[in-house]
């Protein structure tokens, strides 16, 4: 049926062109409906507990996500605490308050906070920390001393060294943080002082990344396309010919994106990666076709005839390479993360679109071309240059052939060593992510992050919410309970990961000591519940009594501990989570409490865990499905297994490299595992399929290998070079995930082509017979094969059930064991059946 399609395309090329154009136009008209979503929080579905809880905490305690604006003055001997700098910050704060989307009443700054201090003898004063612009150095010193004396402010809005102050700018929605940060930068431009201004915070990092990512996308994908184009031009010389894969790539990317947008999915950070993932996949098959076409045309001399021959040879491997890539990505649809699901499904669709275009558009395109334009291929200057090109590749290929055939034992030994070393490397991988580190280390946000976390107790926040199990009791004004929290705070601080924690005990202690005359010795939790309540009602006489409700609820049944961390790394946040768990389990609370976490730093940990865990399962699942497909394709589990070898080594090597160079296993890396799987199997499919075709003709492995290292190996190396080099410019991208993609593309292509060209011939030299596996006999007749196949089938089915339902591993494992037992019995029986006997 598909062969008919190819014939149809060759005979009715204009119709095909029209249909492709129609598809692209239909996709393009979807583009204006594009919705952009740059919020990593959407990595979790909206009804996910962490998200609903986070939302509830934000509402209950009146907390907003905030932008951190830091001001550092290293030039003035008094740091920022000189009238000029303080007044500049004052004016800037006022400006920021007026910006759209800023929750002005909740801005945390020197000029917006109320302080409690000693007045004249026997007098307490509630007073704005910095009510108005100031005139003298004495006033600046006074503000500094008061701010540093208040544990709520020290390390949070004023740095311990007095060199810096921070303004925390709460925003109504995270997706405005980039705009607000730009407005702040704009406002800073007008300030002429010797202080420096820094903006950071997770919302800014996340939103800015989303925006820069789209920009980067618009640059990187075309740039990679250009490099690929140039490389192809080097190989094939005929611009007219190589335009076809480029058009194919563009058509594939546009229709896939059109499909995504048309179905109403927002373009998320993940889906903005679709073009860059689809491009190599779309180009790969066409390069195989062109490469073969190029080689064959010389001898056949007729474009239509050539295209039929080439398509006949390549049809099956192309179908399977596309299917395996699609499977790799489609497996992402089992992920618990909505944007990853959409990404997986649409890239899988894109892969299949690319495949259909490859078998229709490319033949149609070639048949539309003027026969004369191919004349160059056979003769003239092009040949000479091209021979030189071929020369280099061929010389290398010839060497590879010698090594892999004559020293196959060495090759196999080295492979085993590589596997062992890789496994060690993989054991050293650390799972970690931090949206701030998605930027280059010289990016504004990274620089701000570094400098502010040097001066302050931490720009990353998480909220630890303690909740009384008995709602009727005001347990959090019980002195015992407050002391318990105080001890927890001390413990966390002593562990070193938490820069500072602020909560109800700090307010109580501060107010109590000021009421008693400001003596530091009285900086303690008072003895009775009534005393605590009276301290708090005194605090409510301030200008900002509502600040209390950021830390507790009016019925005192919940408290919120504001935890500041100097690092937003998920692994560091995870350490803090463990510390709290450990402390609370080792030190029972005096009253029954539940506790839970909120805040962006925490949410990132949660979705990372889901993602990494999900990706690993997806990966193993698709690995087995690919194996199943290979067995089916080659009609032999042994060949199926062999075809998985280069892929396995590629994956092990690449991921072990992460472990060795100390690169974290983060979101982009996790997503790339699907790509690695889909792309690395491709060369093996082409290689084995062609080797078998050739072997079936000459029945001699040495002969076959010689031929293999001509056309097929050349196609593989061309492909590897085109993609690997095409994505190399990404290594210089300003955004780290793009570099990761560039590195992976390069590594996948490089390692998997090398692995395929060395290891597959080596294995075949060891076991030449595998190529001749009798195809005609029913696979199920061989009991061993039957068991292996049924095992793969069972795992596939279980994997799919697991992916689409919420059944836990326990029951599915039991079912699988039972299924396996039955299958083995069936296999043993089938082997004895009549139709197998006949064959034998």
């Amino acid at each position, binding site marked *: 049926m598909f062969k008919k399609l190819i014939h149809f395309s060759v005979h009715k090329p204009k119709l095909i062109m029209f249909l492709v154009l129609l598809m692209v136009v239909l996709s393009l008209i979807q583009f204006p409906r594009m919705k952009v979503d740059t919020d990593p929080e959407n990595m979790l579905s909206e009804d996910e507990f962490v998200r609903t809880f986070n939302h509830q905490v934000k*509402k*209950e305690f*009146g907390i907003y996500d905030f932008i951190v604006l830091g001001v550092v003055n290293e030039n003035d001997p008094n740091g920022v605490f000189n009238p000029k700098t303080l007044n500049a910050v004052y004016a800037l704060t006022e400006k920021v308050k*007026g910006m759209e989307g800023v929750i*002005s*009443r909740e801005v945390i700054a020197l000029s917006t906070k*109320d302080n409690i201090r000693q*007045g*004249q003898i*026997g*007098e*307490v*004063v*509630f*007073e704005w920390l910095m*009510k*108005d612009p100031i005139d003298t150095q004495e006033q600046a010193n006074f503000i500094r001393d008061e701010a540093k004396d208040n544990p709520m402010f020290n390390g949070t809005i004023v740095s311990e060294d007095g060199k810096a102050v921070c303004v925390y700018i709460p925003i109504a929605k995270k997706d405005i943080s980039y705009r607000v940060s730009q407005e702040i930068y704009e406002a800073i431009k007008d300030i002429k002082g010797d202080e420096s201004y820094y903006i950071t915070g997770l919302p800014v990092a996340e939103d800015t990344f989303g925006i820069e990512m789209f920009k980067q996308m618009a640059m990187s994908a075309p740039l990679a396309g250009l490099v690929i184009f140039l490389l192809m031009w080097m190989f094939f010389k005929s611009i007219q010919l190589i335009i076809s894969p480029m058009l194919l790539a563009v058509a594939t990317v546009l229709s896939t994106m059109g499909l995504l947008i048309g179905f109403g999915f927002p373009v998320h950070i993940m889906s903005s990666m679709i073009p860059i993932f689809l491009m190599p996949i779309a180009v790969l098959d066409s390069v195989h076709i062109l490469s073969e076409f190029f080689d064959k045309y010389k001898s056949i001399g007729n474009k239509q005839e050539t295209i039929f021959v080439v398509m006949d040879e390549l049809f099956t491997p192309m179908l399977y390479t596309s299917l395996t890539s699609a499977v790799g990505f489609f497996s992402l649809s089992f992920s618990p993360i909505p944007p990853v699901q959409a990404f997986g499904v649409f890239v899988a669709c894109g892969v299949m679109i690319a495949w259909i275009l490859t078998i229709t558009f490319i033949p149609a395109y070639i048949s539309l071309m003027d026969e004369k334009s191919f004349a160059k291929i056979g003769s003239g200057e092009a040949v000479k240059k091209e021979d030189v090109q071929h020369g280099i590749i061929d010389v290398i290929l010839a060497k590879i052939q010698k090594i892999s055939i004559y020293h196959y034992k060495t090759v196999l030994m080295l492979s085993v060593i590589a596997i062992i070393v890789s496994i060690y490397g993989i054991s050293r991988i650390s799972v970690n992510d931090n949206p701030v580190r998605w930027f280059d280390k010289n990016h504004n946000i990274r620089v701000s992050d570094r400098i502010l976390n040097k001066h302050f107790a931490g720009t990353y926040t998480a909220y630890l919410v303690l909740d009384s199990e008995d709602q009727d009791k005001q347990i959090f*004004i019980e002195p015992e309970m407050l002391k318990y929290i105080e001890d927890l705070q001390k413990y966390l601080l002593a562990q070193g990961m938490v820069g500072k924690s602020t909560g109800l005990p700090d307010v109580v202690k501060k107010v*109590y000591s000021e*009421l*008693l005359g400001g003596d530091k010795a009285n900086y303690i939790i*008072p003895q*009775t*519940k*009534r*005393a*605590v*309540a*009276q*301290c708090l*009602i*005194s605090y*409510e*006489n*301030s*200008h*900002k*009594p*509502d600040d*209390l*409700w950021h830390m507790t*609820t*009016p*019925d005192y049944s919940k408290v919120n501990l504001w935890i500041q961390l100097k690092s937003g790394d998920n692994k560091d946040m995870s350490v803090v989570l463990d510390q709290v768990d450990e402390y609370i389990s080792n030190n029972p609370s005096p009253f029954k409490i539940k506790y839970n976490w909120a805040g962006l730093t925490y949410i990132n940990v949660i979705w990372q865990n889901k993602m990494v865990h999900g990706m690993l399962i997806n990966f193993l699942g698709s690995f087995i499905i690919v194996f199943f497909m290979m067995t089916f394709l080659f009609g032999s589990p042994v060949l199926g297994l062999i075809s998985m070898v280069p892929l396995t080594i590629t994956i092990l090597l690449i991921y072990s490299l992460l472990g060795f160079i100390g690169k974290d296993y983060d979101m982009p890396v996790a997503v790339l595992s699907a790509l690695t799987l889909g792309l690395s199997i491709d060369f093996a499919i082409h290689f084995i399929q062609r080797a078998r075709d050739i072997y079936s003709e000459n029945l001699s492995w040495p002969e076959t290998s010689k031929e293999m290292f001509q056309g097929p190996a050349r196609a593989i190396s061309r492909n590897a070079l085109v993609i690997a080099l095409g994505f190399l410019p990404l290594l210089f991208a300003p955004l780290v995930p793009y570099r990761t993609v560039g590195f992976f593309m390069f590594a996948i292509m490089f390692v998997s082509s090398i692995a395929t060209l060395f290891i597959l011939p080596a294995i075949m030299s060891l076991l030449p017979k595998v190529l001749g596996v009798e195809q005609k006999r029913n696979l199920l007749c061989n009991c061993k094969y039957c068991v292996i196949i049924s095992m793969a089938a069972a795992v596939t089915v279980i994997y799919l059930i697991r992916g689409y339902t919420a059944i836990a591993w326990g029951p599915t494992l039991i079912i699988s064991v039972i299924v396996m037992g039955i299958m083995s019995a069936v296999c043993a029986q089938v082997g004895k059946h009549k139709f197998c006997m006949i064959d034998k």
Partner: protein
Amino acid sequence: MKRFILLGLIVSSVFMFNPKSFAQTVDEIITKANLASYYAGNDGRSQVTMTITDSQSRIRTRGFQILRMDVQDGGEQKYYVYFSQPADVQDMVYMVWKYTDKDDDRWMYLPALDLVRRIAATDTRSSFVGSNFVYEDISGRNLDLDTHELLASPTDVYIIKNTPKDAGSVEFSYYMISIRKDNFLPVKAEYFDKQRKLSRVVEALEIKDIQGYASVTKSKATDLANNSNTVIDFSNIKYDLGLEADIFSERYLRRPPRKWLDQ
């Protein structure tokens, strides 16, 4: 003759919009309003229930009694605020000596700490025990701190715009006040923030005649910026009890004057 002059003044103020005559009238109005709202009788006592509703509709209540004694009508006053609710703050006392020519004196007594502290009164725009009322709403804002301007005079109220002389000392840029023409009680005050946006409203919800004095018995302060409000219910209002001056002293902070408190 005098009558003619008076008539002439009224006519000119209505028809000719003479700013000078308005200025006089404004001062009269606000002076009368000040007396009506804060100086009824020579002294007074009231039970107060305060209901604070925050933006999430969570409710907190405060219960206290206010004793007030005027040293001089329109001038110096003394307040004694005795708390009974919530239970943890029972017996807590606030005391204010209000002056018109200098900063007030304020004291606070915290029974659980057995502590009397003076509270600096340089700034009276801080919250009254966590409610949407500020200190000035309870004891009155000094008239001399603002310039007053009569903006309109519809049938039953005067509408006066008040602009602070020292803009830096307060959180608002100006406030509009509506004063009833019949009893001179302010029934609505609207505060506009520095961006000239309406940010807070204080209104009289219920007015009753008590011992011949028109008295506000229910009042509400609404904070528009954070969507919260506080309602004050005054009950058992009594005027001219004949309070003794010495109960408004530090000595009585620790020892509530039971005799004068409504049990």
